[in-house]
């Protein structure tokens, strides 16, 4: 089969690889009908997250049709079922899964000895996302083996196009969880840093959850225009002071809720010296993340407010203003997404026509063009916001 394979920094190729096979009774194999490139795939493209091996298959936003099931799937899936595959692999049986904390499933990370050393405790296995999270082959391919398939799936009905459902795998529940864990009140202002695909979903989620005002921060006109279309007031950080504008828009009090949809690769600008220092330290491996957005959020957030971090951080961040964080009594909520905790509700909202997540797609191309699209997406060429690949 064809698959997008990681060969090293900035080197992803469309290779022919052997087809996946059932390895465990709880496995299923799907024929991929649609998959997407995620912003966090770019961290792997840049080799900023450790634990990739040349030959690893990329991709964790995938859906398709079940073509084979293992004997232990217990009738929960059958050939021909249409499923979206959540990016977190879950067993559905461990203590964390029973609590709904699916992204920290205690069973599915098959390389937990590595993750235990790096993170203290292993988190769930993830598709196409380094050997720290299990080294599972990803879904930017023609076929995908879904481990623990009896639990790791979202069954979706026929009649709704792939484009509306695909993002249940990651970015829609990720944006939703980011907003949900802010405990949004009807009087709240929610400020969202980053108007990439997750940021766009977080904006819509905050609106759906009843925020009084949503403010979106980015520098790319196409992304800001999409944010505005979704109901946000926008700030272009290249032409305006984020701090001043947020103060203005909140009567000097700061937003109650702040969401970081940027993560470890924040924009580097000469006018923001901390970003230059972070970039220099990142190059010499003295710091793994560039946490400018975290610093800014802690500084501007209203005392007693909540900071929600769906953006990916990989390791160590320097110079976080913990004094401000502590004295202002802020709460920080983070985490990979507990996808299956939210998807029943989100699927219902799609079916009811409350939201159509396909608004974010700007490019749809065959899988073979994936390597070029990684570059286009990374360089923000052709006003690219979200790429869908068709195997």
């Amino acid at each position, binding site marked *: *089969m064809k*698959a997008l394979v990681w*060969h090293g920094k*900035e*080197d*992803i*190729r*469309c*290779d*022919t690889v*052997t*087809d*996946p*096979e059932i*390895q465990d009774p709880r496995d299923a194999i799907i024929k991929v009908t649609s998959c997407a490139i995620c912003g966090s795939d770019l961290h792997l493209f*840049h080799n900023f997250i*450790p*634990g990739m*091996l*040349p*030959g690893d*298959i990329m991709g964790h936003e995938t859906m398709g049709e079940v073509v084979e099931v293992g004997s232990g799937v217990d009738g929960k899936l059958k050939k021909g079922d249409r499923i979206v595959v959540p990016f977190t692999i879950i067993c559905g049986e461990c203590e964390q899964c029973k609590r709904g904390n699916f992204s920290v499933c205690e069973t599915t990370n098959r*390389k937990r000895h*590595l993750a235990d050393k790096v993170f203290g405790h292993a988190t769930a296995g993830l598709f196409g996302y380094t*050997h720290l999270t299990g*080294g*599972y082959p990803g879904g930017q*391919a023609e076929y995908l083996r879904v481990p623990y398939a009896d639990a790791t799936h979202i069954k979706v009905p026929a009649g709704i196009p792939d484009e509306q459902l695909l993002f249940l795998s990651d970015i829609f529940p990720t944006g939703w969880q980011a907003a949900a864990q802010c405990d949004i*009140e*009807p009087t709240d202002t929610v400020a969202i840093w980053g108007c990439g695909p997750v940021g*766009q979903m977080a904006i*819509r989620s905050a*609106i*759906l959850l009843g925020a009084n005002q949503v403010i979106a921060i980015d520098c*790319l006109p*196409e992304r800001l*225009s*999409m944010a505005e*279309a*979704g*109901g946000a007031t926008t700030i272009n950080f290249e032409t305006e002071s984020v701090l001043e504008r947020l103060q203005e828009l909140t009567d000097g009090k700061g937003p109650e809720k702040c969401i970081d949809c940027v993560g470890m690769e924040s924009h580097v600008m000469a006018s923001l010296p901390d970003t230059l220092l972070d*970039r220099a330290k990142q*190059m*010499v491996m003295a710091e793994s993340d560039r946490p400018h957005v975290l610093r800014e959020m802690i500084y501007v957030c209203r005392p007693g407010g909540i900071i929600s971090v769906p953006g990916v951080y990989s390791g160590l961040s320097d110079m976080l203003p913990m004094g401000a964080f502590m004295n202002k009594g802020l709460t920080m909520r983070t985490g990979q997404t507990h996808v299956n905790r939210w998807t029943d509700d989100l699927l219902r909202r799609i079916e009811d*026509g*409350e*939201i*159509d*997540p396909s*608004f*974010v797609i*700007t490019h749809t191309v065959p899988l073979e063009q994936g*390597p070029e699209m990684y*570059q286009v997406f990374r*360089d*923000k*060429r*052709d*006003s690219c*916001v979200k790429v869908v690949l068709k195997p």
Partner: protein
Amino acid sequence: MFHFSNIVRTKGDPKIVEGGPSLKQPVDQLARALGWFSIGLGVVELFAPRRVTETLGMEGHETLVRSFGIREIMAGIMTLSVEKNAGLWARVGGDGLDAAALLSGLTADNPKKGNIALALLMVGGIAMLDYRAAQDTKPRRPPRDARRKLYPNRSGFPKGIESVRSAARQIAHAGHNEVKQGDARRVP
């Protein structure tokens, strides 16, 4: 790195049968080679500056050579990173500094001026490679003033934003009524 990390792929996972084309260009290989060369030269300049100054007949300039070594290492690291274009331009600038320093030692009374001439020739050749690589690895990001497509009609709400907002308000209102019935924690 992969050889030391003890990470291995799990048996049974798909393996490459036939490799596809790489988007890496020859200039990427050149940039990589220049990056490692920069680090190597920098290490020599940093830790053996006397050897360098003796070869060039420029004794007494060891501190300058050491500082050039640090500069070479920094530029090399940058050239090997995703910011390779910035690293290569830093190297072009560094080549200029190297040439200026060498020219200052090209005096009639320097018995090693032949070595300086040779070094200048090498710096010139490498500067050409650096310049060429810097030109060919220009980021392909669109310039800030480039025309961009805008997406003002992509709300994502098929029934319109106002319908979503009013539904959210109704839910909040219902929630507020429940608060009035006695959830003391939520009463303002």
